[in-house]
Every structure is written in structure tokens, then in C-alpha cells.
């Protein structure tokens, strides 16, 4: 997948072009002739530059059915432009993102070959984390140890459920193992959480609250983590 970035000064928006170039980012200098859009899956546009240089790159990309991501130092400028474009192109794949998320979003999209990663849905990630952690507790209730129920293909070709324990020798949950648990979308909890806790502001509680020794305690702590993560996700614009 290739992504086109339309920005006069990517450094100012904390986009490290050198890091992203080898994995598929093309940085375009506004004002210069646009490359052929048909070679890209998505276009990431600094809306102020688009206006300044009077290059209707967003409209052109939408007409080519590309995913368009808008941003601006002032978030409302991007959302206003988004509303304007939506009136003209109701079926466009269009979104506005915050500047601090750009680098991670572009990287995740290119690495996972998934343009939807360009828009970071915090709430969805939080729900995925919480549901995965809850599943660990449900397994714990049914078995002597917390674990992950994984279906494995046996030699006979039949599926069977296997429980991988997540307890340390000191009989508490192991954060290292918990971080390796994969979500229904096959992403490691560690990857999802590092994206969340790498942002500022970050949730006021982290996964360490879960390192307990009984499932009752685990549910109680998971409720606390839920409040913290949801409050953080719901506070984002």
C-alpha cells in the first residue's frame, strides 16, 4: 500500500518522513505538480496547505475513491473542511485526525496494509482491550488459573480449545504474558496499549492494576481500568 502525504512542513506536524518512506509513504511538496493519484490507496492532507496552494487534492482523491485523511494544527479547521467535502461527496471515505496521532496512524496503516488504521478509533481499541482482558477472567473462573482459550488445529484436523496460563510463579498475573495475549483482531495487547499509553494525556490507570491473584479481584480491577480507559477515549475529540 502507498500513501501520499500533502504537507509543506511534515516535521512541524511530527511526521518523520524518513522513517515512513521505506514502508510506502510519498511526501509531496504542495505547489508542485501532483503525482498520479492512481498509485495510492490514501492521501493525508494538511488542510491549510491545500487552501494556501489552491490545489484541490482532497476532491481529486475522493473522485478516485481514495481514502482521504485531513488534519490541521487547529483540529476544527480539518473538521470544517471535512463537513464541506461531505456535502459535495456524501459517499467519500473521509476523516479528520489529530496531529499527534499522524505518525502512528500512518505507520500502522502501512505496516498492516490497512488504510482504516489511518483513523485511530480510540474507543474501538479500548473496547477490544477490555473484551480481551475480560475473556481472560472468564477462563480463570472456569479453570484454576487465568489463561487464554485458544483454538488449535489438532493432527486429526479437529479444533480443540487449549488454555495457556498467565500466572507467574508468585501466583499473580504476569504482565509480560498478558501483553502477549492477542485480541480478536489478532493484535497483541501490548501493541494496542503502547499506542494508548504513548499518548499524552494518557489514562490514569494502566494494566499493572490487574496483576492480582484471584478472579474476583481481577474483575474488580478490570472495572477500575474500564473507567480509566473509557474516560480517556471518550474525552478525545
Amino acid at each position, binding site marked *: 500500500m502507498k500513501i501520499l502525504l500533502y504537507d509543506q512542513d511534515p516535521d512541524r506536524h511530527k511526521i518523520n518522513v524518513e522513517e515512513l518512506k521505506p514502508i510506502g509513504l510519498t511526501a509531496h511538496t504542495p505547489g508542485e505538480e501532483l503525482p498520479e493519484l492512481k498509485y495510492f490507496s490514501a492521501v493525508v492532507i494538511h488542510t491549510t496547505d491545500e487552501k494556501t496552494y489552491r490545489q484541490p487534492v482532497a476532491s481529486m482523491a475522493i473522485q478516485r475513491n481514495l481514502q482521504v485523511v485531513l488534519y490541521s494544527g487547529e483540529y476544527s479547521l480539518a473538521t470544517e473542511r471535512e463537513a464541506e467535502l461531505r456535502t459535495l461527496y456524501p459517499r467519500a471515505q473521509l476523516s479528520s485526525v489529530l496531529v499527534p496521532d499522524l505518525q502512528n496512524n500512518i505507520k500502522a496503516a502501512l505496516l498492516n496494509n490497512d488504510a482504516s488504521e489511518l483513523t485511530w478509533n480510540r474507543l474501538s481499541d479500548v473496547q477490544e482491550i*477490555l*473484551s480481551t482482558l*475480560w*475473556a481472560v477472567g472468564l477462563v480463570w*473462573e*472456569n479453570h484454576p488459573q487465568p489463561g487464554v482459550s485458544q483454538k488449535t488445529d489438532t493432527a486429526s484436523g479437529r479444533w480443540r480449545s487449549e488454555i495457556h496460563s498467565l500466572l507467574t510463579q508468585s501466583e499473580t498475573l504476569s504482565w509480560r504474558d498478558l501483553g502477549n495475549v492477542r*485480541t480478536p483482531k489478532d493484535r497483541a495487547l501490548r501493541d494496542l496499549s503502547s499506542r494508548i499509553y504513548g499518548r499524552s494525556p494518557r489514562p490514569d490507570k494502566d494494566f499493572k492494576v490487574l496483576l492480582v491473584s484471584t478472579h474476583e479481584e481481577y474483575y474488580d480491577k478490570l472495572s477500575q481500568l474500564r473507567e480509566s480507559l473509557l474516560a480517556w477515549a471518550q474525552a478525545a475529540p
Partner: protein
Amino acid sequence: MTLFFEHESIRRALHATGLFNDQLQIDEPPSSTTRPVFFGWSSKDVLLQQPQNARLSLPESVYVRLPQSLKTVQDYLDLSLQSFVPTEQYRVLSVPLGQLQSAISRVQELTISDSNRLASALELRRFAREHWPGWYEEIFTELIRSVHNDQIATHGLKVVMGYATGVAASTALRPLTDWRELRSKADFIGILEDVIAYVEQGVFSDQDLQEIGVTLDWLGQLETDFSASELALREIEGSGFQLETSCNGWLTSISDSIKRLRVLRMDLTSSMRPAQEAITTLKLTLDEMIESRDQLKDSLARRD
């Protein structure tokens, strides 16, 4: 059982318990006959800001806030098997149109000091974009702007309430209007028209038609689009909303055209006259639908 999940991952987590699997019959509202049970992580208040969750406000709906123990989950899954007779209000709140109207009423009741107003306004716009793209963008963006300025622009909301059924009907008919407006579909009709004209003028013979490979395979796609539009309109009507009488007339007319074209599809050597008439009727009907939709758009833009 009638189950709702705030996020798909909750369903997956339930799979891990072995209590729940894809083989279980999930009822689809508004025709569901088992008690609706919602599983979610957010508080009920937050969920109610999202128009699609309007049914949660009804006493017959059960909300299970996670995390819960295995035993509690089992109890709620059992509850979701209980039979249930949907009330009129439940049916209304089961379709996007009813959910929109309910959400607008809630926003209209909010006061300036209410901390939920921005989230509710943003959810309204997101919901409208999902179901009726392009129709309410300006009105809801204006609403959000007004909330930022410590006001609530309610006039636009009244306008939306007034036009909501018409907009829903127009959106339901979009798969059909695409047959005039979307080149990839409209071209099929145009080519058939040309072919019929050539046959009428004697330029093409029946034999030529078969040799050049004229087919009406696209008729299947038109039938699918017709069914989708018809189903969407019936869903609106079935939930107690009154559609314009013209909607049913359009459906009858298009259905009739499809039937006549089907005869031509079976036998390309049959008379071209009924096919020509069918195409003319089809185009006229689609044009009427488009004109009516454009008038609705103009009125909405003027906030009449």
C-alpha cells in the same frame, strides 16, 4: 435470543466462554420475539447518547454492563431467550428513522449547562452520516458549532424532524436512482435503448443480436436493487412511519418494467415494442424519483 453488543469484541469474548456460539439464533429487530439484552462496557448514559441505542431507554430492554462473571452472563443469556412482544415504541426505535427522531428529541431537551450536549451532537452527526450521507451535514455541523459557542441551534433540528421520513425514503430509493445517475449502471439501459432502436430501424436483425452477444444479465442487478429499496421502504412503513403515496406508485411502475424486460431476457427475438415501453417507463419513473429527491434537498437547504 435478541442480543446487542456495544463492540464486536464482546461477542468474541463470549465465544471463549463456550456459552455462546454462532449457531444460536439471533433475532433481528423490529420483528424480534425474544427479550432484547445489551452487553457493553460504557455506562448506559453514554450509550444513550448514540442514536442507535435508543431502545435501551425502554423498560423492556436489559443492559448488562461488563465485566460480569460467567454465572451472571449465563443468567442474562437465559433471559434473552424469554419470549417478548415488541411494543409500538420498540418497533419505532428499532429503525434508524425512529432512532434519529428520538435522539433529536433528547438533544432538544438538553440545556446549555448539560455536559452531554457536545457528545450528543457529535453522535447525531455521525449517525446521520452513516444512514443518510450528505443530507444533514450542514445542519448538524451548525449544531456542533453552536454547542461550542454555548448555544444549541434548535431550528435546524425541527427542520430535520419535518423532513426525516422523506429523506429516509429517498435514501432507500438510492439503489434505484443509481440506474440513472451512476454511469456503470445507467449505461446498461442506454445500450439496450440503442439496440432496440437499431432493431426497430432494421439495422440489426434478431440474428445479429445473438451474434454480437447482446444480453440482459444486468437485469438481475436491477432486480436486486429493486428488492433492496422495497425492503428498506417496507421497514420504514412497518415501523409506523407514513411514506408519500408516490413511493408505492414508483415501486409498482418499476416492478412492472422489470417484468416486461424479463420477457425480453428470456427471448431476445420477441417483439421489441414492450421492451421499448418498459425502458421508457423505467426512465420516466426514475427521473420522477430524482426530481422529487432534488426538490426535497432544496427545501432542506432552505430550511423551509
